[in-house]
């Protein structure tokens, strides 16, 4: 399966790895935005997850501890955002940007001694039987646990949001906060939990970059992945399965441009490197042209029970 000097099996398998961090962060942010909160601090939570995950994985030599600690770190950082926006009612855009700054600074500060160290390998899990299928097996069914986890998480979120009572309440809070409050739902508490969930998944996504995709710690290594996750949520019109689709599309473009660079296509490197961002813009325009605007009704609106 080699086309124009690019191995398709390797391409798809690399695509899934490349898409996983963004997918994890985006599915969390989708839940946050479904609850009516816009957290622009995804990049900050991802990079914090990346450094905390790396530090714990290197010190314990057990990657899973890294991912768990990254989730906790991301959630803790998002608590800062949650307290500021939900209780103190600060501006969500400004607070989210501040969270990104704090995350980038904090991670660089505590990650300094860990530069240049290699992380323990995240082992692959070959799914029995399925991984023996020719072509499809090595493409889709022989990844590490986090890749599978991200897909299962998307399925779970999709199910919970559309089929369960919790999902219904979450959507009610996001669509019409006053009505949800009048029905007796604790708007602030539900949003607080949603924000923490978003923080945790962003943390895991970040840790996947530093533990599996690169696998090393360098300052600012998320390189805008958090922002792309935010764009993906819009791309997906806040629908979980479309988040998956978008993440894999985006991962595909990223991997493809790297492959094209590697085989020395006569397109300048800079144009290839900027292509994922340009494609994101084109997609955003396309969504506005052909998609429906299904943004949660109360998105980014502050709420206090007295108003």
């Amino acid at each position, binding site marked *: 399966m080699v086309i124009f000097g690019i191995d398709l099996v390797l391409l798809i398998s690399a695509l899934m790895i490349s898409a996983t961090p963004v997918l994890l962060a985006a599915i969390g942010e989708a839940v946050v935005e479904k609850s009516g909160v816009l957290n*622009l601090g995804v990049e900050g939570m991802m990079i914090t997850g990346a450094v905390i995950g790396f530090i714990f994985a290197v010190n314990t030599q057990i990657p899973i501890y890294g991912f768990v600690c990254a989730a906790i770190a991301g959630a803790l950082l998002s608590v*800062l955002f949650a307290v*500021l926006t939900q209780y*103190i*009612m*600060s*501006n969500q*855009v*400004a*607070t989210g*940007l*501040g*969270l*990104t*700054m*704090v*995350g*980038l*600074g*904090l*991670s*660089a*500060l505590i990650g*300094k001694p860990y530069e240049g160290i290699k992380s323990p390998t995240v082992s692959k899990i070959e799914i029995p039987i399925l991984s023996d299928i020719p072509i499809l097996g090595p493409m889709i069914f022989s990844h590490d646990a986090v890749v599978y986890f991200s897909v299962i998480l998307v399925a779970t979120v999709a199910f919970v949001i559309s089929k369960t009572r919790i999902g219904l309440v979450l959507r009610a809070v996001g669509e019409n906060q006053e009505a949800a409050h009048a029905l007796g739902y604790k708007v602030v508490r539900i949003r607080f939990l949603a924000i923490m969930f978003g923080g945790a998944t962003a943390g895991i996504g970040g840790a996947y970059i530093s533990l599996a995709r690169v696998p090393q710690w360098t*300052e600012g290594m998320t390189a*805008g992945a958090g*922002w792309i996750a*935010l*764009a993906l949520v*819009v791309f997906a019109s806040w629908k979980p399965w479309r988040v998956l689709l978008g993440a894999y599309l985006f991962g595909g473009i990223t991997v493809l441009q790297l492959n094209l660079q590697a085989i020395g296509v006569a397109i*300048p490197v*800079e*144009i290839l*490197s*900027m292509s994922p*961002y*340009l494609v*994101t*813009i084109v997609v*955003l*325009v396309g*969504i*506005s*042209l052909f998609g429906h*605007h299904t943004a949660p009704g109360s998105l980014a609106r502050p709420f*206090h029970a007295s108003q």
Partner: protein
Amino acid sequence: MFGLLLGDFSSAFGAIKLIFWDPLFDENFASYARPQLLVKAGPIILIAIGLSIGFKAGIWNIGAEGQYILGAIFGASVALSLYPQESILIFPAMILAGALGGFIWALIPALLKVYFKTNEILVSLMLVYVAENILASVSQGLLRNPEGMGLPGSRNLKDYPSAHNSEILVNSGMHWGVLTAFLAVILAYFLFLKHQKGYEIRIAGEAPKAAYFAGINPSKTIIFCMGMSGLLAGMAGLFEVAGPSGQITMSFNSGYGFTAIIVAFLGRLNPLGILLAGLLMALTYIGGEIAQLMLGLPGASIQLLQGMLLFFLLATDIFTNYRFKSKGS
């Protein structure tokens, strides 16, 4: 900073003194640091003033960094294409080109928002990464110094008198960009206080529906706000590349476009507030450099400090949203 984390009060106090006090008043540092204060504050204030216009209208231009880079590239291109001719008109032409570069780059998210309702936060931010790639490309290709022995980076504009953004007063740090920043503060002050356009912008931000029914065209507001912020960011980029930085290199941009977002909020979107916040932020940069030198703190700790500053300020919203009450009343 570390001291603060460990709860060691005296060393924390020492670090804070090193960052906020020594750059201005310690004789070892003051001669270097005082001019630097204006050099660093100038571009930050200029960009933040532009951003505050949009933020007031609820238009979130997060991509000032990209507009700043494009402004620098446009402006420097004018100078580099005219090298080595000398004329008094070159520098004004560069300023215009710089403003145009930033303006065009900001117009992309503005027009996409007007015609396709795309989210300007995401588009403007994506364009930062595109701009950084363009910068990498031109500094190695189009604008590379032909006498630079193949090294990336353009000619140094400091060696080109007609294009050099020199200090107006020697050793004050006061260059044309800083002067423009001060002018922008004054103009923005009058825009919001006296001019109808400023009033319209405020209405559009605080009560979009009322603005719409009062006949304030939302599309025009978007284009005006994004355009102005891009224009000022582009000019800031030009002043930086023609002055303190001197040449187009892959890393001449120092993240001022992002810092300016913090400054705009720290200054409460008020022009005078932004002036003060910009100076404070410049101080953290310089103090941070000194702290790096003296205490071996990594550069990013300053980013953390700046982020925390913003958080503390946002937390003071508690005083505007809640009121203290004594038990009896």
